[in-house]
């Protein structure tokens, strides 16, 4: 029984950690600020979910489950908000966008005003 639990814990912790690592690498490798924010917001959320799930399986009490669920709830609320702020700051400072970006309707609307519906 304990072996099964250890194996599940290792799998969950390992997948969570590897998503975090991939996210960190994406922040270094992807071409512009917006793509980097894609990597950091999505990967850190799922990475934290995997690691918390591993911790809950290992500890195995209801207290741990409730704490992990609360931590995850606050993370899911807070992480995207942080990345919105960073993306907004990047856009308002006019950071260079990747050369292959097809269109930027936010810049269009800031110049001409939003469309009337």
């Amino acid at each position, binding site marked *: 029984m304990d072996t099964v639990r250890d194996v599940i814990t290792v799998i969950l912790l390992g997948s969570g950690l590897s*998503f975090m690592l*991939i*996210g960190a*690498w*994406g922040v270094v*490798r*992807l*071409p512009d600020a*917006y*793509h980097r*924010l*894609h*990597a950091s*917001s*999505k*990967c850190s*959320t*799922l990475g934290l*979910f995997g690691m918390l799930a591993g911790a809950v399986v290992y500890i195995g009490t*209801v*207290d741990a489950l*409730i704490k992990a669920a609360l931590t995850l709830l606050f993370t*899911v*609320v807070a992480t*995207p*908000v942080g*990345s*919105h702020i960073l*993306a*907004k700051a990047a*856009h308002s400072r006019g950071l260079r*966008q*990747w050369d*292959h*970006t*097809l*269109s*930027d*309707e*936010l*810049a269009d*609307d800031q110049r001409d005003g*939003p*469309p009337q*519906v």
Partner: protein
Amino acid sequence: MILRLGADFLVAVLFSLWAGRPGWPGFVIGLAIGFVIVSTSDLAFGRPNHGRRLLWMIHFAGYFLAILIRANLQIAREILTPGFNQTPRIVRYPVQDLDDLQVTVLANCITLTPGTLVVDASEDGRWLYVHCMYAEDRAKAVNGLQKLDDRLRREVFSW
């Protein structure tokens, strides 16, 4: 919905204080009692049922976890394979008929779904600007956002 969940939790706290049994078993019993009270009041006033809406929210949470995992696999593939195939765009998406809290929930969900990231909201709160990673075809990208929006409206916003 938030009001109802709040009432449910309030009953749970009061019950666990009254029963003098700290810890989670008393709290869970209190939650169950609060659930019955809220459901009964909904039935009595002929409003849509609390329990059914709770089930819809759990259903949405499962769907959300699935798309979060898909989003991660997608970006992991982009990071780990050499070269880039993105065709990014910043598109505007209309949110005229949602209130502020609903726009916030929608924006958070958009950011955590595959290939999309909210960049800004317009001053009057009528448009969201979304960075889509794979938006060769603008209509298709907006359609993907529309699908998530419809689902949220049907399962979570229908308070």
